[in-house]
């Protein structure tokens, strides 16, 4: 188990960035920010050297933070230009030695996080009008090109050197797993045979052909490159609907989490946030997540919203939830089961949801908060832990908090006639569209694939439901009697925590995503799954596997049998 001190932390801010520069000069007039990648070789999280603008988790945490902060703090920014401060290299992707030396679990979590970051970049464009341009002023290889693929437009500098490539297959015997394969054919609609050629030529493709094959949007001579890409970014910024967003932005405040470990908390590790508490029980391999409902009135206007700022429950609780989830994912690998509880007033949750929805329709900042909730809940969906939600007295599973229950693999709700009023579930407008899953459906729609009308019928059902009503509505898995509750829940938790972690990961990932496929579900469900399988195969990570042998004097050896 990781000591609290050595754990990976996800909070950062621009003045602490080591590897990125967020350049905002001129943004007030042009609407364009530049995110300049300048990775410090010796400042990786591990013992490797981050050569050639290659990245590790630390680099990507900064990137994720930068995108998030642009959304909240810089309404004037309507386009981001991604470029590199290094000569001849844009980005050479995830650091190979980092991948080669990390545990399987870390690799998987790393890829998941980087995938989320890239999806967030795409969502910033689709939902917030923050366009992005990849200005490839050097070689964009592997994850470097995958980052470009997540941008709206890709421009490649023509200088005889700059090229785009996905060398993972030929060089490392793994996949371009950060969305690369999926985005090539699904997003950029590169012809599958062209993509096949592209993905097997280690040195990649440049010039005319890169454009012909739609790998990039244009190839521009070096002498005109900066001017042309800046101009294009300004055009995109001008046409963006975010031009209506009025400042000032909201600087995201530190989360101020209190972490404690050891005897006074019974050998548990407790992370205490304002509205969230994450308690890890290492012995039982169970984590408990408690989410607390609002303890203040919702804002009724943009001004009130800004006065509340970071303090608004709708923002703060979900930021805390996100941080706790990432903490769980990276720092507590052996925890197999996440038990979700809530405490508070469901009615207040609904009131805040409604206030948020009303404000979001007209205020960019409120809209950003709603989108953040959406992203955080999506992180729950792809978290590879069994999730059980427990609904009991004093819980506030309503609206946006109910989404946590709907994201769970099972929902247990206590059936207690004596305390019927204290044990309730409630819906709010937030359950009907604002918080879709990666498959494009709401969690209610995903739940009732067999009876699509059922999700619709629930719309407008505002009254809090009793256990029996919730059970009938299909929102609850099991409703143990009050007398049996403790035992039933304990046994369910113990039983689940004893199951094979691999089987559970695969089972849950498959069951959670019924319904249609989207780019997102393909990335997490198809590309990542193949990648994670390949990561465990000898051809990649065995003693003589290509990933292991990369940079070694000997060459990889393959087991030629197709599996």
């Amino acid at each position, binding site marked *: 188990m990781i000591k609290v001190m050595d754990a990976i932390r996800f909070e950062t801010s621009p003045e602490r960035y080591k590897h990125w520069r967020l350049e905002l000069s001129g943004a007030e007039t042009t609407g364009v920010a530049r995110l300049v990648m300048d990775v410090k070789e010796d400042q990786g999280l591990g013992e490797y050297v981050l050569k050639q603008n290659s990245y590790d988790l630390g680099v990507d945490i900064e990137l994720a933070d930068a995108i998030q902060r642009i959304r909240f703090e810089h309404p004037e920014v309507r386009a981001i230009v991604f470029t590199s401060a290094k000569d001849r290299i844009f980005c050479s992707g995830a650091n190979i030695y980092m991948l080669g030396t990390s545990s399987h679990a870390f690799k998987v979590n790393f890829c998941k996080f980087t995938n989320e970051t890239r999806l967030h970049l795409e969502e910033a464009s689709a939902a917030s009008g923050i366009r992005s341009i990849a200005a490839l002023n050097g070689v964009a290889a592997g994850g470097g090109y995958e980052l470009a693929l997540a941008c709206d437009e890709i421009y490649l500098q023509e*200088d*005889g050197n700059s090229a785009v490539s996905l060398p993972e297959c030929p060089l490392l015997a793994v996949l371009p797993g950060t969305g690369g394969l999926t985005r090539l054919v699904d997003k950029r609609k590169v012809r599958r045979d062209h993509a096949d050629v592209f993905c097997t030529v280690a040195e990649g493709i440049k010039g005319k052909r890169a454009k012909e094959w739609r790998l990039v949007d244009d190839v521009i001579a*070096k002498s005109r490159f900066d001017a042309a890409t800046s101009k294009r970014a300004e055009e995109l910024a001008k046409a963006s609907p975010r031009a209506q967003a009025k400042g000032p932005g909201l600087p995201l405040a530190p989360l101020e989490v209190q972490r404690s470990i050891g005897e006074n908390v019974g050998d548990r590790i407790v992370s205490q946030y304002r509205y969230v508490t994450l308690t890890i029980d290492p012995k039982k391999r169970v984590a408990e997540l408690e989410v607390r409902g609002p303890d203040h009135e919702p804002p009724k206007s943009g001004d009130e919203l800004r006065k509340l700022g970071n303090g608004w429950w709708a923002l703060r609780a979900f930021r805390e939830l996100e941080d706790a989830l990432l903490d769980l994912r990276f720092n507590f690998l052996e925890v197999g089961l996440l038990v979700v509880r809530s405490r508070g007033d469901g009615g207040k949750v609904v009131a805040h949801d409604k206030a948020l929805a009303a404000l979001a329709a007209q205020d960019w900042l409120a809209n950003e908060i709603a989108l953040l909730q959406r992203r955080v809940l999506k992180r729950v969906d792809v978290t590879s832990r069994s999730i059980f939600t427990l609904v009991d007295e004093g819980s506030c599973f309503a609206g946006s908090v109910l989404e946590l229950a709907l994201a769970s693999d099972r929902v247990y709700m206590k059936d207690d006639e004596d305390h019927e009023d204290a044990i309730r579930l409630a819906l709010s407008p937030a359950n009907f569209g604002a918080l879709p899953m990666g498959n494009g459906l709401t969690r209610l729609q995903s739940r009732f694939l067999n009876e699509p009308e059922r999700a619709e019928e629930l719309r407008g059902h505002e009254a809090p439901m009793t256990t029996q009503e919730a059970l009938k509505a299909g929102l609850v898995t099991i409703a143990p009697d009050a007398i049996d509750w403790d035992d039933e829940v304990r046994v369910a938790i113990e039983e689940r925590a004893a199951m094979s972690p691999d089987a559970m990961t695969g089972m849950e990932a498959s069951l959670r995503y019924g319904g249609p496929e989207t780019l997102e579900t393909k990335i997490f469900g198809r590309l990542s799954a193949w990648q994670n399988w390949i990561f465990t195969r000898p051809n990649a990570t065995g003693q003589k596997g290509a990933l292991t042998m990369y*940079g070694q*004097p*000997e060459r990889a050896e393959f087991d030629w049998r197709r599996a």
Partner: protein
Amino acid sequence: MSTVVNDTKIPNNVDLSSDKKLQRALEQWQPNFLDWWLEMGPEGFQQDQVWLRTAVSVDSDGWANFDYVKMPDYRWGIFLADKVPDRKIHFGDHIGQPVWNEVPGEHRNALRRLIVTQADTEPASVEQQRLLGQTCPSLYDLRNLFQVNVEEGRHLWAMVYLLHSYFGRDGREEAEALLQRRSGDPDKPRILGAFNAPCTNWLSFFMFTYFTDRDGKYQLLALAESGFDPLSRTTRFMLTEEAHHMFVGETGVQRIVERTCQLMKQAGMSEDVRKASAIDLPTIQKYLNLWFSLSLDLFGGEVSSNAAAFFAAGLKGRAFEDKEYTEHTALGQAYAMEQPKDGRITREEIALRNAMNEVLRDQYVQDSQRGVDKWNRVLEREGIDFRFTLPSRRFHRHIGLWADVAATPSGELISKEQFEQRKGEWLPTEADETYVRSLMTKPVYEKGKMANWIAPPPRGIKGQPVEYEYVRRTEA
């Protein structure tokens, strides 16, 4: 003994006429090559009759035929060294297997990259040197410049032959691209750094042919070991021509040093020798520092997985792999490599295969020292205390481990600020460049005459006197 077919448009010993497809591809490329030559080749001399050697076969008497020829009429041919019967791959993972006569699919891309990178240097140097004729110090030197130029052109042919015959459409596209890149053009530069650096005076030219062509020599030596036999045979023959280029550089610098010593003595040793219009020794050292360090970069990163892969696959060996090494897998061995760490220099053990670029660089540095010793012997003979030295390989580097640190020519690590302050002591300044070029404003076309800043060569070429009319000017 290979047969030479000279009745086609393209002299060759590869039986081109029996491969119509290849012949057609090359014949299609030829006019584009000529356009390139006329645009980017020696400017102002295309109509002159130049006394050049032309390779017509690979035998010892066949590859050095001398006659007057107009450069655009030069017969750029394709010549491979004779096949070694039963040749086996003799290093890397495939030791003992027969060499490849066709490109193995597995290594196709790597081979293409190796060939394109080598090929790109050939036209690049012609471009870099295209204006030098206009300031030539003698007809003898002018002819040597052109000899180097046409042979670099032939080297390009040799590489294009490989691309055309073994790499299909990709190869043909790469061959076209070789004619489209331009040295020093920021939009379409040549692939390697030193081949984009300006080479605009004759001191630079001699340093270039001494140091940068010598990089070429070592790259060719390493490729001559290749398990891809056509590459090996092509590069082996190129090496015979490369020797002359380095001769031009070595003797060129030597003659400048001789002349400077003479003028120093005439002026009285205390005088500023620039007053006598000589190139002073410290300036020569600065140009040496510049071109040596630029050439060191050409060998690539000290620790290189590409280099390891090339060696493992049997594509690129060490120079003199057979003669100088007894063990040819290079496995289980380490190379103790100096590396910068937190402002100090440490030594780290690197797997030998990954250090192959550095191994080649070692061989190169050693070889480079020989000419420097010769130049120093001139100084010694003339009783002058100054001595030339090769700068440390940490000095003025742009590629590899030393690219991000600054070092003095003696290899001492200093801050980047200090380097900026002091670089004028070590590298040619604008004023140095202006001065050197001020000596070379006019060409010397009179038979046997030398510019003031350079001594005559001890003898002419191929038995001809120094006064021979090596270039018959047709333009005024």
